[in-house]
């Protein structure tokens, strides 16, 4: 019984923001292996928009070698809402996760209400440009976008910068909770030494006021749900939400 319970309770932990240099195969393999050893079962690596398919396939092969699931991701940095719409039209069907780095308020608002956007990311150290306020959260709650929080600054910053960072995260986490906007916590690191176990990532969220259940959701359920949803949409069998082709051919 105990064994059964252990299997049933097992969570799939995900890190949707591993910054890897795709061309540096050795480092990529080292970081991916470390992530697998720490307990992650799914990772996403951001690619530049002009990435060739073979580079993605190569990284996918590295991940399957390390027995870890891999999702392709792109970080968009549009300057205007129109540019965002254009990039989304061009790239949505090519990547499994789309994150928008919101550099100004107009882009942030557009990204929050567009159902093609998965993650909203804000400048880490420019606290005046973290636009995740109540209006942004309300828009995001009506679409599918989640708030992404990178843990890296918590580890590398010190003193007043970390205090200010924690203070804005605490405010944003409270707003996200109030408006039921999912939070996704990612590492945002490129070195293996800054990688933490999923449970340790959840512990760090205690610093900005997330309880244990929400913290574990942010490293397990929320990121996995995004990838699962998008994989279903990108599959050739998908017709519309809840409708998919189950059989094709003359005998149907």
């Amino acid at each position: 019984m105990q064994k059964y319970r252990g299997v049933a309770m097992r969570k799939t932990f995900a890190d949707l923001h591993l910054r890897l240099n795709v061309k540096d195969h050795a480092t990529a393999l080292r970081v991916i292996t470390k992530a697998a050893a720490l307990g992650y079962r799914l990772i996403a690596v951001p690619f530049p928009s002009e990435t060739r398919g073979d580079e993605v396939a190569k990284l996918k092969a590295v991940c399957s070698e390390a027995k870890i699931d891999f999702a392709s991701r792109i970080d968009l940095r549009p300057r205007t809402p129109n540019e965002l719409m254009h990039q989304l039209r061009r790239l949505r069907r090519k990547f499994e996760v789309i994150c928008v780095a919101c550099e100004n308020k107009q882009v942030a608002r557009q990204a929050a209400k567009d159902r093609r956007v998965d993650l909203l990311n804000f400048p880490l150290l420019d606290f005046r440009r973290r636009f995740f306020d109540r209006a942004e959260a309300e828009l995001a709650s009506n679409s599918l976008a989640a708030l992404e929080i990178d843990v890296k600054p918590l580890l590398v910053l010190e003193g007043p910068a970390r205090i200010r960072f924690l203070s804005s995260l605490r405010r944003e986490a409270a707003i996200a909770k109030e408006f039921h906007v999912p939070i996704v916590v990612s590492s945002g690191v490129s070195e293996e030494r800054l990688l933490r176990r999923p449970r340790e990532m959840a512990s760090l969220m205690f610093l900005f006021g997330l309880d244990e259940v929400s913290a574990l959701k942010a490293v397990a359920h929320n990121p996995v749900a995004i990838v699962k949803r998008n994989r279903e949409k990108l599959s050739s069998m998908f017709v519309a939400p809840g409708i998919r082709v189950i059989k094709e051919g003359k005998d149907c």
Partner: protein
Amino acid sequence: MKRVKRRYLALQVDSDGAPSRKEFMDAVWSAVAKLYGEYGASQTSLALIDYDVEKKTAVIRTSLVTLDLVRASLASITSLANGEAVVHVLAVSGTIKALRKKVRR
């Protein structure tokens, strides 16, 4: 007087060198003090129970009410004895005996 509930944490140090007991505990105290200040650190009742320099494992004790605080502080450690380091929590338990069982599993 109410009994103070404690928790024991089994830790794994991932670093280049082999830090001494003192260096390890200094890093833990400094991480707690950096995040929560001296007042917060004083409430943790932190104590080093066991430290194996060769295996780089440690067992520390803290009070239950400050467990989250200590876990967050441990996760924020990035250096130890002037070198890069990470401290991973392997297991948490209410008794040392159960902790050792969990780690062995």
